């Protein structure tokens, strides 16, 4: 369970809405890619091991390199980097990927600030 979902335990309706948004975002991408993106972003924050990329195709590696830029370098991502991800995932996939990578970063930060404990959970 994400730190945000855990923090919202006292408001099941809002928690369900958040979980649905999170689930819909992940479901729009290949489940393996979603998991790798989350892991790569968490590794940048130092709260997970970096994913093993040895068996991954070039497109997936490119996506992970892009996702790793989201926590601290989001304004430095270039048009060329974005175009490469669009070429691999398509426009709809790029939209879902962008939301997922950004949400993964924010959720890591919510966990690191101790949100569930602050919310009494």
């Amino acid at each position: 369970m994400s730190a945000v979902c855990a923090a919202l335990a006292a408001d099941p309706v809002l928690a369900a809405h958040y979980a649905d948004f999170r689930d819909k975002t992940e479901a729009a991408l290949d489940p393996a890619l979603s998991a790798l993106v989350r892991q790569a972003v968490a590794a940048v924050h130092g709260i997970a091991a970096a994913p093993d990329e040895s068996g991954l195709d070039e497109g997936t590696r490119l996506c992970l390199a892009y996702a790793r830029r989201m926590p601290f370098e989001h304004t430095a991502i270039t048009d060329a980097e974005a175009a490469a991800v669009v070429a691999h995932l398509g426009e709809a996939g790029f939209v879902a990927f962008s939301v997922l990578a950004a949400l993964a970063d924010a959720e890591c930060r919510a966990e690191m600030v101790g949100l569930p404990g602050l919310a009494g959970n």
Partner: protein
Amino acid sequence: MSTIPRVSSAIPGEPPHFGSVLAHQPEIAASFFALYGRFWGSDVLSARIKEVARMRNARVTECGFCRNVRFDKALGQGLGEEVVDDITDGYETSAKLTEAEKAALKFTDALIHDPDLLTGDARAALQRHLTPAQIAELGLGVTLFLALAKALITMGLEPEQMDRTVLPTPAVLEAAA
């Protein structure tokens, strides 16, 4: 930071903006707008404090779109530009922001920048001024503000130029009769 859209609009006749680009993923869009409406519609935490946190996030993440949008519910709760102007570095000494808002801003900075900012006195102040349920809503809000700002920026949806724009506060969409 690019101001050239990196993805096209999925709505014929509309330029690329957050809504028209998110329309490439209609299920994500519907779920997001339902969540965002529910979040802003809840009065557990005031719209004014939510907007204070949103403005801080906009400034730190360099989201020009977020920075220029105002939601009317917070305006109605007294969040005028003279207060917004104080949501910058040094807000701790503002005479226009309330102590609860300053505590919320410190939490916002901790979440979006450095978790070590929320230790000792800052953590105690947050818990003194906000209830656990309010902190949960604030945490949800800052998570969404941060994620959306970064998604918007990285999709190249930053406006080259934008005037300050007051928008209706997101609301829960009623099902069609």
